[in-house]
């Protein structure tokens, strides 16, 4: 335990704040209420469904379509699948152009064929086979159908397997496919894929990303808000399915994560030991003796020494004369530019990664605080409720830091200009508050409760300011609603 005097000395600013806020207690209340509704704004409105509930939901759509258009359930499903389960739209389309709609979605055959002479299967050229056909009449033998479905299934295609005849877009309905597949495991696989396709094509449904979690999340959210599965408690972005990432948009975070996966592990090594391809700026490590390099990515031939095109080295065999004449050409603009790009990336990445690490460490801190509260309650130093504010503070710290972490990818992709300046200014403020709050939380229990709450208040306020733009301005930030995850 640290001495109280010490606390007093270092915390004088907090004391000031404390005095200030003590005067306006009501104000804080209000703000906290405000925050509450703001954190609701982050949370997407969702409904967790299990497999049966999903089936029921889908069947409801099927039933309502059958009601208005009188087609068989399996055809209705194909139709719904190709129009993203929009019953209203399908109904409209059917009213407008029944024939065309059915043709386009592969429900109705474009042309019907006659049975081939002496029952020859046109795929394996066997004669006198028992032929089976979809309603388009293209007959093929049972073996060929089976082999065909198996191949398509192994390619991951299930709901949109069309007839084998060329240019016949007719989709094979599930009953037909299941009848042709003889192995139970394949049938199960087909049904699994089909279910996956149904859910993926439904605009309101998303699979929970939790490991081995079969739940489906239903939401009408259009902004990348946070969804939390009720079963496995995994949180993810309701639009794209990766970790919740406000204030960065779905597209940006995707780009960022890909970039990190490509670079981060080796970024340090790269900056020290490699050079960049002068054409595509991919990083290249020299592992052979020859200076004639070929970029594995863009196939550009260049010279390791001078970064010039290898073509200019024609007759020279292993030695770069350009380099010998003037070694300074090695510092060619391209090279420098690429290196600077890497440095910029590393700047943002390091901060992003640092906050991630801090988050993990503060997770431990939270555990520690929990134990501390238990200990205090056991020693009869106040009730459990009295100490609950410590726990709240740690939770809030995690939340703020999380948001802060995800401001870096956004800032990285933000173009230079007043908007970036403003954003980075706000980011700086939040960063400062978060670090101060972290400091205060670590020493919580001994320091003043009022001071801590003041910190909490300011940090949350800064965080909301940052997110404000993201959730409440309609334009730019919006993620395209089509980017559904797999």
């Amino acid at each position, binding site marked *: 335990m640290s001495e109280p005097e010490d606390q007093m000395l270092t915390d004088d600013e907090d004391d000031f704040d404390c005095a200030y806020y003590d005067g306006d207690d009501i104000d804080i209340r209000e703000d906290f209420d405000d925050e509450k509704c703001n954190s609701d704004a982050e949370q997407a409105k969702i409904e967790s469904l299990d497999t049966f509930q999903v089936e029921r939901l889908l069947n409801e759509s099927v039933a309502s379509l059958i009601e208005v258009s009188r087609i068989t359930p399996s055809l209705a499903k194909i139709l719904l699948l190709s129009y993203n389960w929009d019953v209203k739209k399908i109904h409209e389309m059917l009213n407008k152009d029944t024939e065309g709609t059915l043709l386009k979605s592969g429900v109705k055959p474009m042309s019907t064929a006659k049975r081939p002479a002496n029952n020859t299967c046109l795929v394996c050229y066997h004669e006198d086979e028992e032929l089976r056909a979809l309603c388009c009449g293209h007959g093929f033998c049972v073996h060929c159908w089976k082999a065909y479905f198996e191949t398509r299934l192994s390619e991951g295609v299930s709901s949109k397997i069309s007839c084998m005849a060329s240019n016949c877009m007719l989709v094979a309905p599930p009953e037909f496919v299941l009848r042709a597949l003889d192995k139970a495991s394949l049938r199960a696989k087909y049904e699994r894929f089909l279910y996956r396709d149904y859910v993926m094509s439904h605009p309101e449904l998303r699979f929970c990303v939790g490991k081995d979690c079969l739940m489906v999340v239903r939401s009408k959210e259009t902004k990348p808000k946070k969804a939390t599965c009720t079963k496995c408690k995994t949180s993810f972005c309701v639009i794209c399915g990766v970790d919740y990432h406000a204030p960065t948009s779905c597209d940006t975070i995707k780009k960022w994560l890909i970039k990190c996966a490509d670079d981060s592990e080796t970024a340090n090594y790269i900056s020290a030991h490699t050079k960049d391809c002068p054409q595509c700026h991919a990083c290249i490590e020299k592992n052979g*003796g*020859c200076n004639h390099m070929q970029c594995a990515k863009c196939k550009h031939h260049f010279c390791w020494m001078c970064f010039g095109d290898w073509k200019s080295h024609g007759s020279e065999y292993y*030695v770069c004369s350009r380099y010998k004449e003037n070694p300074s050409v090695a510092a060619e603009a391209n090279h420098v530019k690429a290196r600077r790009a890497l440095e910029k990336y590393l700047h943002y990445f390091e901060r992003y990664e640092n906050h991630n690490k801090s988050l993990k460490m503060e997770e431990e801190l939270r555990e520690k605080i929990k134990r501390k509260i238990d200990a205090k309650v056991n020693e009869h130093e106040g009730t459990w409720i009295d100490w609950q504010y410590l726990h709240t503070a740690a939770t809030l710290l995690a939340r703020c830091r999380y948001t802060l972490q995800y401001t870096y990818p956004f800032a990285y992709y933000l173009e230079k200009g007043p908007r970036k300046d403003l954003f980075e200014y706000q980011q700086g403020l939040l960063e400062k508050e978060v670090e101060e709050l972290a400091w205060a939380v670590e020493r919580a229990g001994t320091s003043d409760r009022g001071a801590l709450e003041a910190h909490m208040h300011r940090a949350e306020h800064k965080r909301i300011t940052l997110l404000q733009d993201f959730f409440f301005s309609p334009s730019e930030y919006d993620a395209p609603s089509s980017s559904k995850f797999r």
Partner: protein
Amino acid sequence: MSTTTPLTAGLFSTNRFPSENTNTRVTLYLPIGCIIFIVRIFLGLQTFVAACVLRKTHALRGLVLRVMSALLGIVATSSGEKDESVRVFVANHISCLDHMAVDLIRPCLLPSVWDIPNVLRWLFGYADLGVRSGRGELVRQARLHIKSDDLPLLALPEAAMTNGKKALLRFSSWPFEVSDRIQPCTLRLSRPFFNVESTIIGASWWQDTLWFLFLPCTIINVKWLPTMQRDENESMDSFRDRVAQAIANELGIELSNWTSADAVEAAKKYRQETQRLRIAQGTPSKPTTSRTLIDPKRMDEVAMRIKQSHPTVALLNIRRDLEKTKDMQSTIERIKNGTVKPISTAEHLSNKKSPGSSPNEWHSLYEERKWTMIEENRAKYLQKHVED
């Protein structure tokens, strides 16, 4: 001829005998040398066994090995003061037995670069420090090694042998990353009576070893230079350059910008060149056998080429004749003396066969149709362009 620059720079010798004089001496010595050589092979085996049985740190081992290797004709002398506290030595690289010479004076390990079984590696006194998984791994493991094991590491940062007379190759920087304290040492090799180079460009390690066993004796002098310490603010590269400079100064040679990779390339180039010279001077029987046509694709090309100079002869006939002769020249001869007849295409087309039922027949039919198709289109094309 830019590639031969490392050669002309004098870093490597191309001839084992620098002077004519040595040549005659070696010839005279040959019978004795051979006897010594055979005796030494057996002796060498025993030395090897002794080296394996005795522990590396054992005091007796050094003595035993020194005596035995002296019998093998390898004498290691040392001068200068060796620093027992230093964990990494750095030396120049002049022969394949450098490591052994240093090992005789001060037991040490050399990181192995070859993919050899663990047992063998241990027998030769190499240490596998993961050099094959990259430089980073080597440095990491070497750091661990010098902390845990009491055998110091020997590094030959030139990574390729030179004749040690003109300049040092550019040092690799890994030893300097492993430790901040390094004792440099210089290796000099001399052979009394016979001025034979320890290694030449493009020679393999076993050739060099055989020369060691053949000549009466080889003296390798290891001179320990004062230990060098990396300054606090000094970069890895400048420390490396400082050590390299110290070694070069002691040897009285320069530093060069050539890397081991350049040396390897130069050796490769040299070997290719000598081989080419040998082929150029070699017997004329070789090229004719290599010209034999076996690959059907090649045969197609040759047939097309012959067609260019003998347009009257049907392609199919040329191709079939090539199948028999397997040689372009003889087919051309056969066309000239009339063995291969210039049948006109029209005549050929008239005897269309009906295809049989076996795939074998189909294939010959395909071949026939193929050449006919080319022939026909060629005729059509020419006709059209004459009309134009």
